[in-house]
C-alpha cells in the first residue's frame, strides 16, 4: 500500500516544481552587469567598510580611551571641572557609537557588544546593591555583570545623576571599571571588524564569495537595511515610546539630556552609510548615492536631502527632549522629526532598494 506520506510527497513535489523551481530574477552574481559594474559595486562596499564602519569604530575606541582617562582624572581629583570634562568625554564617545547604530549587524550583534555597551534601562536596584556590597569592583568583576549593570548608560547614570561631592570612592571604583570595560569592548568591536584571522570587514568586502553575503547586491541591501532599521527605530521606538506614552522614564539618555544628539547621530550614521563618506574624518568615497544616481539622479539626491532633513528636524526639537515630550508646544516638532525619519525609511524601502536590486 502506498504510504500517505509518499503520496503527499509526490504531490507536493509536483506542485513545488510548478511553483518555485527556477524562475525569479537572477541574483547569483553582482549587479547584473559585466566586470565594470562588479568593480563599481565593490568600491561601494569597500568604501562603506573602510571609510565609514571601521573609522567610526576606530573613533569609538579612541574616545572610549579618552573617557576612561577623563574618569581616572576625576577620581584622582574630584572637582567640578573634572566632572564636567568627564561628562564631555562621555558625550564625545556617544557620537561614534550612535552613528554606528546605522549598521547594527555583525560582531556588534553576535559577539554581544551592543548589549555590553548600550543596554538600557540600567538595573538601578542591583547597581545600588553592588555599590553597597563588599565585592572588589574590578574590571573583571564588571565584565561578568549583566549588561544592564555596565556600558554607556551605567556610566551616564554615575556621571550625570550625581554632583561631584556625591561621588564616593565606591562610586569611583565602579565607574572606573565600567569605563574600562567600555574601552575593552570598543577595542574588541574594532578588532572584530578590522583585524585578526577573519575580520568581519573582509567578510563584507568578500561579498559574493561567502555565505554571510552571498552576493554583492546582498551586501548593498544590508547597508540599506541597516539605515532603514535605525530610522524606523528612531521614529517608532526611541521617540515614539516616550512621546506616545508621555513617559519621561522611557527616554534613553535622560540623565545627560543627550537624546536629541543621540537621535541625530543615528541618522548621521545613516548618511555616512549612504554616501560612503565620513566628512568629519576627511574621508570621501563612493557610496550607494552614486549607484542610485546612475539610474535616477533625482532619487539619489532626494534621498540624501531627506536624510539631512531628518537630522535637521530632530535638532529642531526643543532641548531637552525629556521636557519636550511633555510640552504641547513641542509636539509639532516631535511629530515632524518622526515623519522626516519615516519619509527616509519609505524612500529607502520603496524606491532605493528596487534600484539596488536591479
Amino acid at each position, binding site marked *: 500500500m*502506498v504510504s500517505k506520506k509518499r503520496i503527499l510527497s509526490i504531490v507536493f513535489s509536483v506542485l513545488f516544481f510548478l511553483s518555485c523551481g527556477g524562475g525569479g530574477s537572477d541574483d547569483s552574481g553582482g549587479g547584473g552587469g559585466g566586470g565594470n559594474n562588479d568593480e563599481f559595486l565593490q568600491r561601494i562596499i569597500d568604501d562603506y567598510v573602510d571609510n565609514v564602519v571601521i573609522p567610526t569604530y576606530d573613533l569609538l575606541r579612541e574616545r572610549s580611551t579618552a573617557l576612561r582617562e577623563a574618569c581616572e582624572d576625576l577620581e584622582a581629583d574630584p572637582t567640578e571641572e573634572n566632572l564636567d570634562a568627564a561628562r564631555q568625554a562621555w558625550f564625545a564617545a556617544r557620537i561614534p557609537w550612535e552613528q554606528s547604530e546605522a549598521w547594527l*549587524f555583525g560582531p556588534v550583534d553576535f559577539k554581544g557588544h551592543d548589549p555590553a555597551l548600550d543596554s538600557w534601562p540600567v538595573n538601578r536596584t542591583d547597581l545600588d546593591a553592588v555599590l553597597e556590597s563588599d565585592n572588589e569592583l574590578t574590571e573583571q568583576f564588571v565584565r561578568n555583570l549583566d549588561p544592564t549593570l555596565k556600558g554607556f548608560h551605567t556610566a551616564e547614570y554615575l556621571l550625570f545623576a550625581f554632583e561631584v561631592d556625591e561621588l564616593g570612592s565606591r562610586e569611583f571604583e565602579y565607574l572606573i571599571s565600567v569605563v574600562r570595560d567600555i574601552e575593552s*569592548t570598543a577595542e574588541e568591536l574594532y578588532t572584530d571588524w578590522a583585524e585578526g584571522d577573519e575580520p568581519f570587514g573582509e567578510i563584507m568586502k568578500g561579498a559574493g564569495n561567502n555565505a554571510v553575503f552571498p552576493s554583492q547586491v546582498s551586501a548593498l541591501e544590508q547597508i540599506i537595511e541597516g539605515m532603514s532599521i535605525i530610522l524606523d527605530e528612531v521614529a517608532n521606538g526611541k521617540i515614539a515610546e516616550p512621546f506616545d506614552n508621555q513617559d519621561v522614564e522611557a527616554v534613553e539618555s535622560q540623565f545627560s539630556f543627550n537624546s536629541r544628539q543621540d537621535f541625530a547621530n543615528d541618522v548621521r550614521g545613516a548618511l555616512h552609510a549612504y554616501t560612503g563618506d565620513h566628512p568629519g574624518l576627511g574621508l570621501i568615497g563612493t557610496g550607494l548615492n552614486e549607484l542610485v544616481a546612475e539610474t535616477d539622479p533625482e532619487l539619489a539626491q532626494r534621498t540624501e536631502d531627506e536624510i539631512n532633513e531628518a537630522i535637521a528636524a530632530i535638532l529642531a526639537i526643543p532641548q531637552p527632549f525629556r521636557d519636550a515630550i511633555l510640552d504641547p508646544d513641542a509636539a509639532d516638532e516631535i511629530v515632524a522629526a518622526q515623519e522626516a525619519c519615516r519619509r527616509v525609511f519609505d524612500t529607502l524601502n520603496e524606491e532605493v532598494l528596487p534600484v539596488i536590486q536591479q
Partner: protein
Amino acid sequence: MTRTGETETGDLYKFFGSLFVLISMVTALLFAACDGEGSGDEIPPIRAGGDTSVENRTSFAFEEPAANLSEESFEKHAQGDITFGDVFVTPPAVVNPGLGPLFNNVSCESCHIKNGRGLPEFGNTGLRSLALVRISDPGGTPDVPGGNPPVEGLGNQIQDHATFGFEPEADVTLEWEEVSGTYPDGTPYSLRRPLLTIILPGGEPLGSNYLTSVRVPPPVIGLGLLEAIPEEVILAAADPGDEDGDGISGRPNMVWNNITSTTEIGRFGRKASAPNLRQQAATAYSEDMGVSSPDIPGGDPVPEIDEETLDLTTFYTQTLAVPLRAQTDDPDVVKGEGLFFDLGCSQCHLSLLETGDHELPELRNQVIQPFTDLLLHDMGEGLADHRPDFQATGREWRTAPLWAIGLTVTVLGLQNYLHDGRARTLEEAILWHGGEAENAKDGFMSLPGEERGKLIKFLQSL
C-alpha cells in the same frame, strides 16, 4: 473487514478528500495568476509565508512585520516590537521591573538574536547564556497532567543567572567531543557531541538520575502561521503506527493547555510542548526571565507584566514576516530541490501546507512552505536527549521548520542547528538524522559529494 481495515479506508477517504481540496486550491491559485497574462508567462512562485512574506535576505530578515498586516495590526505589531525588546531589571525600577531573581537572560532578544536562533553558550561572556537546560525528575510527580515531573528545588529548567545578591540555580558548562566518520565515498566528516556539566551551588554536580536537555532558542518567524494550521491537517500527516509501512511514524504531541486545563496538540518548542504562542510567551517570561504575568503569576499579587504586554509580545511573535526564498535559477539549487524530495526529506519536512482559521485574519487561509509537519519523530539514539516531554519520548523531536534556514548565517553571523546547536553546518545537521530518518540520511550519504553539495545549496536558498 477488520476494525483496522475500516479505519484505514475511512482515513484514506478523509486524506484524499483534504488532499483534493488542497490541490484544487493551489492549482486554481497558479492558474488564476496566469489568467489574462497570455501564454508563456512565469507561474508566480508560492511564497514561503503566503501573504505575510517579505523580500529580505539581510541580517534584518526576521525583524519585518508580516506584509499583509492591516493598519491596526501594523500599529499593534510596532508596539509588540517594543515589548519583545524590553530589557528587564531587578525590581523595584521605573522601567521594566520584574527580572528574576532567577533567570537565563534579560530580554527576549538577548537569546533570540535578531529574532533568530541563539547559540549553545552559557556563562558570563559578552552574550551571557543564549541557551538553557531543561530538567526533569523521572521519579517525580508532574505538576500538570502528562507533564514533566519537576526536580525538587529546581523545577523544569535551570536558571544559571540571578539578580545581584541571589545565587543562580547552578553553573552550567557546555563542552564538546568530536565524533568522526566517513562517507561511503571516503570523504571524512566530523560531528560534535555535547558534554554538559551542571554544578550546584554547594559544588556538587546535579544528580545523574535527573534528565537534562540543552535547548538553543529557535527563530521566531512564521509562528503565527504555524499556529493557524488546522488540527486536521497536522493529524492527516500523522501515522503513529506506521500503517503505511514507509518507516515514518510521525505523531502529534498532546500537551497541557494551562489556561483551558485541557490537553491539545502541541506545536511550539523543540518537542512541540507548547499548544499556542501565548503559553509559549508566558512560560518564557516566567522561566527564562523570572517575570510573572497574568497567566503565570507565580504568587505575585500584581504580575510583573500586565495583560497588555503579554498580549503584545504574543501578537508580535504571531505577526512577523517570513522572508522569501532567495531568487535564483542556479541549476544546482533546482537539482538540490529534486534531491530533497527524492531522498524523502519532504516526508517530514512538508513543503506545502495551508493555514485555516485564526483569530488574526492576516494568518487565515495562507498557502505556506514551512518545511515541517509539526509532528514528533524518533530521530534515533544519537540525537536523543532521553528526556520525555509530555508524549514525546526521549528519542523524539518535532520536525524543525526549515523556512529561512538559509538565512541563519546572515542573521546570526554563525551557524548552529538542532536542539542543542551541535550541528555547525547544515551538512552536520543532516548527518545527525537517525531513527525514522535513517533511510533518508543514508540516501544522502550515498550520494556523490557534488550531489550532496547541491542539496545543501537548496537548503541555503530557503
